[in-house]
């Protein structure tokens, strides 16, 4: 099926060319050059990845390319050429004929990029109509065709639906359909999968890659996720504080990087495929500089471990290294980076892992359940006289041994956070036992004694919301000490200093307010507060998800160190399998409120996997263009926990479903030895066989 319109005539130099672009924002403190002297080219049919951390200017670049900067932003110098035509000189009115027909864009959050009161079909059709002038009926038909083109199940029904009736992944398909329907010459994708679950992300990335093969569109793909670049892009530009640091083909930049920043970024990502727990992640010290206080020399020099005086003296130009196709870098010492990358890495490479000595169980959760009543009542349910419930956590039993970290993974909406909150007493469990040490704890926090409260402490996902903005961070950390431990003033001060030191924060920070420190630092304060009472169990609910990769890495290092030094037991919850794998000795996989697989981190990594775990693994974007991953994909999104499928509750999405038994019978727990357990109908030997064969195919 081909529904592309006929090819447009292309100019003398086809594709996108950005030449020496400088973008300025007028702020209260005067003009700020947020992007400086940026140049890159994207050929038709090429996917160019632009990676960088938050604050690097990625989105500003995208908005400059489409000539849609915020009202206080201007293009100070440079040219943006599409097929040889300069877009900077166009007025907004002229741009309207280019937008949508020559340039289209897919934005970050699909929920916010669609009009909530317009049907999906109409949102596609209006685009077609404006640019091709076909009739309403034809446009509507084209919209349905386009939906099936992006592999939307039941396209004609979806076309009549409204955005709130679709999942995030489905909406992103719609936006991709809108972006491709006019067969544009340039497609800009700004973090199109960041708001999605990792399983949905994998499906969308497959879709983008497959569809774009048929188009001669130049694609600018903006992301912070190196794994996504490795999976999708042909060439990549690494951007830092508004300037290009390194650029080249993905195969070269990821394998033979020639800039310390790229090296640092790649070293910051925990690697799921490497079975080593003693690796210290290679962090980048310090923070990205603000555009108004850029260093005089190389802008990365203050954070570079291999910077010399010459680096700080003058800003190095981008040089073509002649190391293969178009591989350029802004580092004057690139040859040193190439030959001895270890000079730029974290000095402490390995960590001595202490094995816990006791066999004590810290947490024993027995058949914990949490059902939420549904606030919305349907007429039918009223007549039948039953009250539907959401089974957010449905019978979870697990144990954590003293000194170990138990990681919990699963997609959003699978019940991870609810489970953690039940353990912490923030949600009142509906049933089950929560035993900490040898004590059976009451369900809610208000009924737990000070002594019981001391035993469990929690670190939350969003540090902005979990620290009181009116209190200094020192006061926040001191609060559990005074409330639960009754320390004297002098001891308190000593203890505070010790806590701040243990999370690598200078003690001067105690007098600061939360808004005076960065997100990563706030999360360190939250960890210090949680550790203040010497808890037996530390619960971390997605503590690193909202942070940049380099900040994530240093926080993970701190967590590892704390665990190693203090022997704290930890329940670590994350949707990021690589982070869970890096931090945990044991991993539990959870889906629709139930456990499906549990085992040591190294066992979980190898077959047999539960099919759900397998899908999570193969969805994970690995920052290595040569990484071998099986392509097991899950259909649709997590179903609602109101109508749980009968039999195995994973069967409607299971890529390895064997037959009716999956639909009718609950699967049994099978033991693969060494406490590695899987809940599935497929015999484990068979799982090993098919999963090893799948991975073998890729070799």
């Amino acid at each position, binding site marked *: 099926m081909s529904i592309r319109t006929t090819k447009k005539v292309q100019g003398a130099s086809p594709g996108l060319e950005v030449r020496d672009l400088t973008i300025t924002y007028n702020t209260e403190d005067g003009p700020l050059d947020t992007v400086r002297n940026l140049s890159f080219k994207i050929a038709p049919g090429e996917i160019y990845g632009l990676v960088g951390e938050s604050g690097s200017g990625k989105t500003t670049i995208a908005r400059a390319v489409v000539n849609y900067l915020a009202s206080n932003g201007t293009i100070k110098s440079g040219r943006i050429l599409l097929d040889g035509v300069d877009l900077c000189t166009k007025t907004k009115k002229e741009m*309207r004929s280019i937008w949508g027909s020559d340039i289209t864009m897919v934005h970050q959050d699909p929920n916010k990029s669609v009009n909530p009161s317009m049907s999906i079909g109409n949102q596609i059709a209006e685009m077609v109509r404006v640019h091709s002038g076909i009739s309403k009926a034809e446009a509507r038909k084209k919209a349905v065709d386009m939906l099936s083109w992006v592999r939307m199940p039941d396209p004609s029904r979806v076309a009549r639906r409204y955005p709130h009736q679709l999942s995030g992944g489905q909406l992103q398909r719609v936006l991709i359909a809108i972006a491709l329907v006019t067969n544009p010459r340039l497609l800009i994708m700004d973090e199109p999968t960041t708001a999605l679950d990792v399983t949905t992300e994998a499906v969308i990335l497959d879709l983008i890659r497959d569809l774009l093969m048929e188009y001669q569109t130049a694609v600018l793909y903006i992301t912070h996720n190196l794994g996504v670049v490795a999976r999708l892009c042909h060439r990549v530009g690494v951007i830092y504080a508004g300037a290009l640091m390194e650029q080249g083909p993905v195969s070269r930049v990821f394998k033979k990087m020639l800039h310390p920043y790229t090296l640092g970024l790649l070293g910051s990502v925990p690697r799921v495929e490497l079975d080593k727990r003693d690796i210290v992640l290679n962090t980048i010290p310090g923070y990205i500089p603000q555009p108004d206080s850029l260093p005089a020399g190389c802008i990365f020099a203050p954070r570079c471990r291999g910077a010399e005086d010459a680096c700080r003296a003058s800003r190095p130009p981008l040089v073509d290294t002649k190391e293969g196709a178009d591989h350029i870098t802004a580092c004057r010492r690139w040859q040193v980076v190439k030959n001895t990358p270890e000079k730029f890495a974290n000095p402490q490479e390995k960590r001595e892992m202490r094995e816990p000595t006791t066999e004590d169980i810290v947490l024993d959760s027995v058949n914990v359940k949490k059902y939420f009543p549904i606030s919305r009542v349907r007429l039918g349910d009223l007549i039948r006289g039953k009250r539907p419930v959401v089974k957010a956590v449905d019978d979870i039993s697990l144990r954590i041994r003293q000194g170990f970290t138990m990681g919990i993974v699963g997609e959003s909406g699978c019940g991870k956070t609810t489970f953690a909150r039940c353990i912490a007493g923030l949600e009142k469990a509906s049933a089950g036992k929560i035993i900490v040490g040898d004590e059976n704890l009451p369900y809610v926090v208000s009924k737990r004694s000070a002594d019981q409260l001391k035993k469990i402490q929690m670190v939350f996902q969003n540090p902005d919301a979990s620290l009181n903005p009116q209190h200094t961070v020192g006061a926040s950390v001191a609060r559990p000490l005074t409330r639960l431990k009754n320390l004297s003033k002098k001891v308190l001060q000593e203890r505070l200093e010790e806590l701040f030191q243990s999370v690598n924060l200078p003690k001067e920070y105690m007098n600061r307010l939360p808004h005076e420190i960065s997100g990563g630092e706030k999360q360190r304060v939250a960890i210090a507060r949680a550790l203040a009472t010497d808890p037996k169990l530390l619960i971390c609910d997605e503590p690193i998800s909202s942070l940049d990769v380099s900040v994530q890495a240093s926080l993970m290092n701190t967590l590892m160190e704390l665990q190693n030094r203090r022997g704290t037991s930890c329940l670590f919850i994350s949707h990021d399998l690589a982070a869970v794998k890096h931090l945990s000795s044991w991993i539990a996989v959870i889906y629709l409120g139930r456990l499906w697989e549990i085992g040591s981190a190294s066992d979980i990594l190898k077959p047999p996997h539960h099919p759900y775990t397998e899908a999570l693994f193969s969805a994970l974007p690995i920052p290595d263009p040569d990484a071998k991953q099986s392509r097991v994909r899950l259909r649709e999104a997590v179903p609602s926990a109101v109508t749980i499928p009968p039999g195995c509750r994973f069967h409607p999405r299971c890529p390895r479903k064997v037959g009716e038994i999956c639909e009718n019978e609950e699967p049994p727990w099978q033991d693969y030895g060494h406490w590695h357990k899987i809940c599935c109908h497929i015999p484990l030997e068979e799982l090993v066989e098919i999963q090893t064969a799948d991975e073998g195919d890729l070799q």
Partner: protein
Amino acid sequence: MIIYLLRRLGFILITLILASIIIFGATQLLPGDVAQVMLGKFATEKALENVREELGLNKPAYVQYFGWLKNFVRGDWGNSMVSRQPVRPLILARLRNSAMIAVVALLFYVPLGILLGVIAALRKEKPLDQIISGFSMAFVGLPEFVTGLLLISAFAFRFAIFPANSSIAPGSTFIEAFPSLILPAIAVSLTGLGYIIRMTRASTIDVLSTGYVMAADLKGLPNAQVLSKHVLRNSLLPTITIVSMGIGYLIGGLIIAESVFGYPGLGRLVVYGIQRRDVILIQACSMVIVMIYSISNLIADMLYSALNPRIRYR
């Protein structure tokens, strides 16, 4: 949707019952003996007793309440204590008059308010926005008796375009009454106009900064289409609520404006009833006003959900 409607109707029923209790209770607390008021100072004790007997005034309050409620629901709203005539035709005639003013006022200020609000939002923080926003603030703050008198002195005395006194003849048609309606309608519109401008401006600014308006722009749609289908469709939803509150106010709450213009509306009838201690009239008028508020609110909610698919498809 049906369950939603049924639930809303249920709420209205509860509101009306509660309101009827409050209204009945409040009129019981009015000072003075009703029979004395009806018969005058020189009535004999025997005559007073007869009247009390006739009206059931010597029965316990709850019996009186249920009797009143039963008759009210049946359509028997009672006889005026002053004129001894049934109050229903009187109230309905006044209701019609009030509705005429409401229609003129709504047709005037709703479209104008939306227009000015949208213009202000599109010219955010530019001089035109500052002028419109400044006026809208003044409109919200100015009391009707001030704007009413200003309008009379300008358009009735200085230019003599419209009559100063709007006391229209009973039973006059809309066309006949129209010239008399304009000044009071404008006077009572200004507050609502101010609110609508401010609400429309705020919600339009919100919607203009959303991702889907940016996405619509980047689809290359003509400006007018972005505005009508993507911006206004979403930004006018909150305005509906303001308009519905305005309807109730225009019909029942215009006591001062009607007095200034001498307009025979429902609000003035209530004042008249209170002055004469005509308990029956006050009770019936109050119930009608509560009903109008409830119904206009219901209409607004239904309209809101009809325009908002997130509610429509629940």
